[in-house]
């Protein structure tokens, strides 16, 4: 097992003693408990763990959707703890892309409009948008469904659209929360293959939360395993392990 804090020379995300606790009545729940972890640039990290282990909470902290109770998170040179809510929104808009288990496409919008949404939020010029949308859809090979609505697509196709939406602002980090959770195994595998492909094409860092260890072992560079809010291990995948 390698040192979880320092796996690579160039660090995309650096977590230092990160904790996130909630108070429910008189009980204090430590969803993330003193986690330190380094994720290198262009690395594909899979966060594994049982339900309630804190992996999704950790992903939300990296996404800037939540703030840690203690500890620091450095992402692409920015200390998230020091960012204002507007700066955090800009970070989510420009630095990261997110995909979810339930795709979270807006059903009343066409694929084109769904993918355009991050461009609107980033205030990208109108003239530039159609090209960017088409480029993102080409990466997920869905250009022919441009005018369709999400409900007209299969689960796998919807997740590909969600990936296109996450990529459209050309983020440095892609965060995936159980991206294969709602898909059959073959489709799930195709999605992970696609993620791996775009990661290598675009040189992105991917942090993926998943339950499916075999898939993670096949596509991720490294597995980080969480239990009870703690990081239990963070091991680089060797070829032997992957096989």
């Amino acid at each position, binding site marked *: 097992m390698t040192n979880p804090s320092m796996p690579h020379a160039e660090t995309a995300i650096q977590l230092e003693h990160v904790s996130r606790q909630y108070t429910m009545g008189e009980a204090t729940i430590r969803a993330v408990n003193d986690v330190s972890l380094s994720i290198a640039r262009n690395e594909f990290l899979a966060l594994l763990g049982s339900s309630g282990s804190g992996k999704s909470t950790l992903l*939300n902290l990296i*996404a800037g*959707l*939540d703030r840690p109770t203690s500890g620091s998170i450095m992402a692409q040179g920015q200390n998230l703890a020091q960012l204002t*809510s*507007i700066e955090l*929104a*800009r970070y*989510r*808009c*420009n630095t990261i892309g*997110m995909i*979810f288990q339930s795709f*979270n496409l*807006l059903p*009343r*919008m066409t694929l084109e409009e769904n993918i355009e*949404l*991050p461009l*609107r*939020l*980033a*205030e990208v010029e*109108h003239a530039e948008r159609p090209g960017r949308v088409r480029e993102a859809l080409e990466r997920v090979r869905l250009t022919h469904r441009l005018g369709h609505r999400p409900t007209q697509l299969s689960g796998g196709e919807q997740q590909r659209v969600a990936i296109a*939406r996450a990529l459209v*602002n050309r983020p440095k980090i892609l965060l995936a929360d159980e991206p294969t959770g709602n898909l059959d195994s073959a489709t799930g595998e195709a999605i992970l293959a696609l993620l791996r492909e775009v990661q290598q094409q675009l040189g992105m860092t991917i942090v993926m939360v998943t339950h499916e260890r075999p898939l993670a072992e096949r596509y991720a560079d490294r597995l980080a395993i969480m239990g009870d809010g703690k990081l239990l291990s963070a091991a680089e995948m060797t070829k032997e392990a992957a096989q």
Partner: protein
Amino acid sequence: MKPRDLADLAFRNLREAILRNVLTTIGVAVGVASLVAMLSLGVGLQELASKRLSQSGLFDTIFVTPKNNFRGMGRPQREAPSDKPPRALDDDARKEMEKLPNVIEVYPQVRFFTEVRFNDKPFATVVAGMPESSRNSGSFDGMQGNFFSSPTANEAILQIEFAKDLSEKPASLIGQDLVLRYAERQALLANNDSPNQSGEPSGGFSVVPKELRLKIVGIVETEPAAGYGGYGNARLLMPLATASTLRAAQVNDLRDIVRDNSTSKTTYPSLSVRAKSPSQVEALEASIKAMGFAAFSLLDASKSLRTFFSVFDLLLGIFGSLALAVATLGIVNTLVMAILERRREIGVLKALGAADSDVQQLFFVEAGVMGLFGGFLGVFFGWLLGRAITFGTNVYLKRQNLNPIELSSVPWWLVIAAIVFAILVSLAAGLYPASRAAKLNPVDALRYE
């Protein structure tokens, strides 16, 4: 987010729950309509009252009398009695007043109580001479028949109530003749026994009954007699020049006789000075007072009227706003429901990079758009309601044999103010939902099913 994107997303969201949003917008429209209808009635009534009063010539006319005149106006004279003899209201004074700025004309009041014979029946009434300028003053707008054919014509215009006394069908009177019976003043020359041998008028006069045949040329609904004083409302109007030549005995004549009248110049018991507009009356009145005459105008009454209508409009506005207040709750309800429905969507927007302010603005714009459309629709409904009330009133008036009136009025300022008010109220209604949506925790929102 850019304003265009914000507007685009807001319209998209509004279209999504079209029925609910249309109903909410109609709620706003009904609120605005009730406000507009109420205020349009207030404005309409004010315009109606102002028009009637301005047609009466009361607000642009100053009534001038010599100082120490009797209290004919029903208003005590404020000036303390002075030892100096009062300045005579003669031709010199008249010419001086005519030269004052913003004066249209200065004319004596010819107004006398007399008898009219029509179809050999006697009718008592007050006759007033109308200056030629009243032709264009708006006083005779909407009259039946015509104005006097010339300033010296032997013609009469009747006030409708008097016309009804003369005939059951007032309109049929036009073209018919009536006979005016009046008392003519004839100056008494000094007799040979008196020390005054010059043959000049002695200052007294005798009264000789005379008759004059007048042709009825028109019937007017309001009493447009310029000026005031005399015996009350004049019901028979004739050209001022014609009325002046009659030398009919007037109420002040007796007083003038008992007063020391050493001058042989024509003096007037009173003069009416007409200003170009009511706004110039106050300054003109001060100038005339400075000349040494008593002057009185109804400007104070006009101010009271404006105060009354301001309060009246305010009350109508408050009642009209009640419906808008209910509509405001409708907007709050709709937007709060929208937050619940779009909770996950708000989470997605935030995950994709929307700032709290973006979400807040989105809800604000949605509220504003409902206000804008509600405002436009409401102004139209309000105008329609005003028209309906005017129509209903006029049907009733027609049955009562009265002339139709314009009861409601929607001026431009009311249209713009109502729409702006609707938008502001809607934005205020959107404050709470927008801030609630903005504060939504994205992690919770994304987890929401």
